[in-house]
């Protein structure tokens, strides 16, 4: 997977309430060319979107703009735009903004160059002599933006499929290995327990320590195996009707001891209007326990706060995010709900979020965790058709984990509270 999986995209947050506007970087040298584009794109109120054209006659300005936090929708790039020696403007911009549509703008007699540009990552080209042709520029801008959007949607779907496949095969291997390894492991554990009772009788001063080390090691191996069994068992979820708020409260209760011991404060902010939903209560608790534990360990017993909250996703926010739209479509739910765990630890730095979900990835000291926690979380989330997003926060710094779920259209409160087994096929 060459691209960062958008499902995990940590930085691409949508801006709430953004006015529909298409912001165009007009990277052409001549002021009058920019004016031509402006005129071509000035449709008055006849389009729901309106265009904002920013003239950047210098390559360095474009680079600066793309490195900033500002959001642009498309670049019109003059192939004659001067760039520092040895720099290919198109290649450089492609590298800086891999997903931004680029329309190149060329002399008409440079058709070969224009076609070559398409092969090197441009989305479309406009010959200079034709930019006055009615609606040609607008047609090109809309087409490339729409095509990019479809590509992104397709890639989200592909990434989800790949992820699901990876988890499935790992689950199958884990189940087999775990079962086979447990017997010998249990035997060694038993042996160490017996040998340890002999410590007082053995003169060698190192014997006791050797026993302890071996026991610790074997217990750790056993913990990992248990984690793998849990992982493989997530194939099967028992869906019931319940409230995420209750799950949060219960998980905090279950972890009360660890929370107190680490001097962590838990700030619960539960949305009382959160609708009931359908999920596997035990597995959902497992998610919360893993996330809260990670946060406690990340904050290293420093008197800090974990903020836990639930909320209903606003329709505006849902409409503005391709991931949330996708989630609503795949789950067939018009209402999305979310749970959030935000800590005040160091965050995940520049780490690609996708890597964190790989089994056995861990930043923890040996003995602190198996490295299976987040992959179990990821797996449970995907079994519930949910969506997980990580984001580094500032002021105060920390990691924010949000998990989104669709609410089933009709709550099944009428059926008896019998567990419904959903076997994965």
């Amino acid at each position, binding site marked *: 997977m060459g691209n960062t999986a958008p499902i995990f995209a940590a930085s691409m947050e949508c801006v709430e309430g953004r006015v529909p506007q298409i912001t165009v970087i007009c990277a052409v040298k001549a002021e009058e060319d920019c004016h031509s584009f402006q005129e071509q794109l000035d449709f008055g109120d006849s389009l729901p979107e309106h265009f904002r054209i920013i003239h950047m006659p210098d390559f360095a300005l474009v680079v600066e703009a793309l490195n900033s936090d500002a959001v642009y929708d498309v670049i019109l790039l003059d192939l004659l735009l001067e760039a520092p020696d040895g720099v290919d403007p198109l290649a450089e911009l492609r590298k800086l903004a891999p997903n931004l549509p680029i329309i190149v703008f060329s002399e008409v007699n440079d058709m070969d160059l224009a076609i070559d540009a398409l092969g090197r990552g441009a989305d479309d080209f406009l010959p200079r002599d034709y930019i006055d042709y009615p609606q040609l520029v607008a047609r090109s801008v809309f087409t490339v933006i729409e095509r990019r959007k479809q590509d992104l949607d397709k890639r989200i779907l592909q990434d989800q499929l790949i992820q699901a496949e990876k988890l499935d095969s790992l689950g199958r291997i884990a189940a087999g290995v775990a*079962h086979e390894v447990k017997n010998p*492991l249990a*035997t060694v554990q*038993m*042996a160490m327990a*017996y040998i340890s009772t002999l410590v007082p009788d053995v003169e060698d001063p190192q014997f006791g320590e050797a026993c302890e080390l071996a026991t610790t090691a074997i217990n750790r191996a056993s*913990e990992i195996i*248990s*984690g793998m069994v849990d992982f493989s068992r997530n194939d099967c979820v028992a869906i019931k009707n319940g409230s995420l708020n209750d799950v949060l409260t219960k998980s905090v209760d279950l972890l009360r001891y660890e929370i107190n011991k680490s001097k962590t404060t838990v700030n619960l902010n539960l949305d009382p209007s959160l609708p009931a939903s359908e999920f596997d209560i035990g597995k959902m608790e*497992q998610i919360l326990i893993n996330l809260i534990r990670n946060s406690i360990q990340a904050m290293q017993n420093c008197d800090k706060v974990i903020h836990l909250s639930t909320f209903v996703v606003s329709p505006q926010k849902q409409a503005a995010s391709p991931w949330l739209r996708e989630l609503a479509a795949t789950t067939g739910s018009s209402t999305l709900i979310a749970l959030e765990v935000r800590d005040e630890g160091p965050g995940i730095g520049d780490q690609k979020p996708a890597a964190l979900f790989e089994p056995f990835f861990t930043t923890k000291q040996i003995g602190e965790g198996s490295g299976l926690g987040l992959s179990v979380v990821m797996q449970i989330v995907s079994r519930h058709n949910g969506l997980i997003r990580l984001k580094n926060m500032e002021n105060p710094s920390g990691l924010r984990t949000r998990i989104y779920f669709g609410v089933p259209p009709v709550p099944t409160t009428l059926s008896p509270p019998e567990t419904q087994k959903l076997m994965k096929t």
Partner: protein
Amino acid sequence: MNKKSILIIDDEASFARMTKIFLEGKGDYNVSYETESMKAVETTRSTNPDLILLDLVMPELDGGDVLARFNEDPALKSIPVLFITSMVSQDDTSEDSLVQSGDNIMIPKTSPPEFVHQCIQDKLAGVI
């Protein structure tokens, strides 16, 4: 105090033998084991143990089958049985550290051995 006798029924010979060594090391038990589930009933009759540690996953007869045969036999029916299995992980048992299957308690094989010992003591005392 008389030593209690324990019978382990488990197809994993090394695990069964190691558990025997561990438990006998405690000084309170005489332990024997049977690795062929087909012979489980016969061996139980001849050893007449105070408690049985029964593996759940075995070839031929599994733990459940063996227990069903015990239940058919008035003489064997009343012997306390603890299931011990590699199917159950510690996480499943986190609620109260034990998983119940009917009246029978299942102990994960990879539990700390002292925990296994505790379960045996409790079962013999009729506490669980």
